């Protein structure tokens, strides 16, 4: 059984998705300021590995990294939901079937406590 990552087209799909997703994130006044000071190349590389992980592709994700990356940012439920919402909208824009979106969002939900440092 193939995973979401393979079904939507692997690394090429991630490349397409990352631009759409990152553009949505940068345009959202609730969260865009978190990205003002960071280098875009590095940020896009990080978003790519995040999407790859969320799609169930090859990754070396650890909850510890996710926790460290978001430490001291004072993130709230609203921030987490905003990013999750942009990801859903991205996948819808790419016409990914709903059952696959659900699978991706289940993985995203599993990062909730690490992202918010709970």
């Amino acid at each position: 059984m193939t995973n979401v990552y393979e079904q939507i087209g692997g690394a090429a799909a991630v490349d397409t998705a990352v631009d759409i997703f990152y553009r949505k994130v940068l345009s959202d006044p609730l969260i865009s300021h978190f990205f003002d000071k960071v280098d875009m190349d590095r940020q896009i590389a990080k978003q790519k590995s995040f999407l790859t992980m969320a799609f169930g592709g090859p990754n070396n994700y650890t909850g510890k990294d996710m926790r460290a990356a978001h430490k001291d940012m004072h993130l709230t439920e609203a921030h987490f939901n905003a990013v999750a919402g942009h990801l859903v909208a991205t996948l819808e824009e790419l016409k990914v079937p709903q059952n696959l979106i659900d699978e991706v969002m289940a993985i995203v939900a599993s990062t909730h406590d690490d992202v918010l440092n709970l």
Partner: protein
Amino acid sequence: MPDLTFNSGTFSLREHESVLDCLLRNQQIIPYACKAGMCQACLVKAVDCEAPENAKKWIKQTLQARGYALACQWVPDTDVEVSLPSVEEFAVAVRIKSLDLLNHRVMRLVLDVREGDRMFQYYPGQYLTLTNQDGISRSYSIANNYEQDHVIELHIGQTPRGLFSSWLFTKARPGDVLHIRGPAGDCFYTQQEQDDYPIVLAGTGTGLAPLYGIIHEALRQRHQGPISLFHGGRTVQDLYYCAELSKLAEQYPQFHYFPSCLDAADSIPDELSGKLETGMLDAVLDRHLDTATIAQTRVFLCGAPELVHALRKKIFLKGAKSGHIFCDPFLERSIPGSIPEQVGR
């Protein structure tokens, strides 16, 4: 704390201290410029030890294989010994062919690669690291095509109390020998599947150097799509190559030149009459950017880091692909007791 051995001296590393910082703290002579892994001036060889991956990943695999690493990125957690690469092994000796002012603060430096020296491959828009006889290194972008001109052209801005530019503006003479290393950087023109995509280039001051090289390379390769150059300065005196660029725009219908300055000019040179716009570079860009073709457009940005990052974000949000935006931000470094010197081009 671990020890660092260099040139038969041994120094104690402080916590989280890089090899480069430790050597500089101990008054050792080692070329360096950006301290950010970009310029590769601080290349060192690991002697009987191995550099960590993060100090090696910046350099070519052939160099990694020979034990080289960047001193600025290497924070040792065990005793290490390093040595400088031999000049003969890495640097190419060049001779200053000519020096002439392009405006009140920009020098055009033309370099002759000396006879008998091996030639190297580069793309206009990439940068070289120059070292003068005093051991001072700086990186500058290449403004021309070597294959065509058989010389290397660089544009060097005068920086108050900048060590390299002061030397260049006051002491350097044609015939002087410099050493160059490189090239590096990924801000250059490549003709891909098609030759009709739009190109947008924007920069301030000597940020024009790589853009000028890229434009000429694109035209030389008969690029068919529209090429738009946005060159900004604080005042009209900060612009240069205005006549050359205006002429180029007359010669090539696909090339468009948009000069601008922040302050309204008292008198406008003839070649800029009717062309010069006033305002922030991003506002000028906004007025002319074709959003209908932005998803296909390749974008090249060069200049002060804040400007490059702001323009990049803006153009990305307008719909350019992140992989199509090539940036060459000038890196800055503070020298204790002086105004920050612009290391970049």
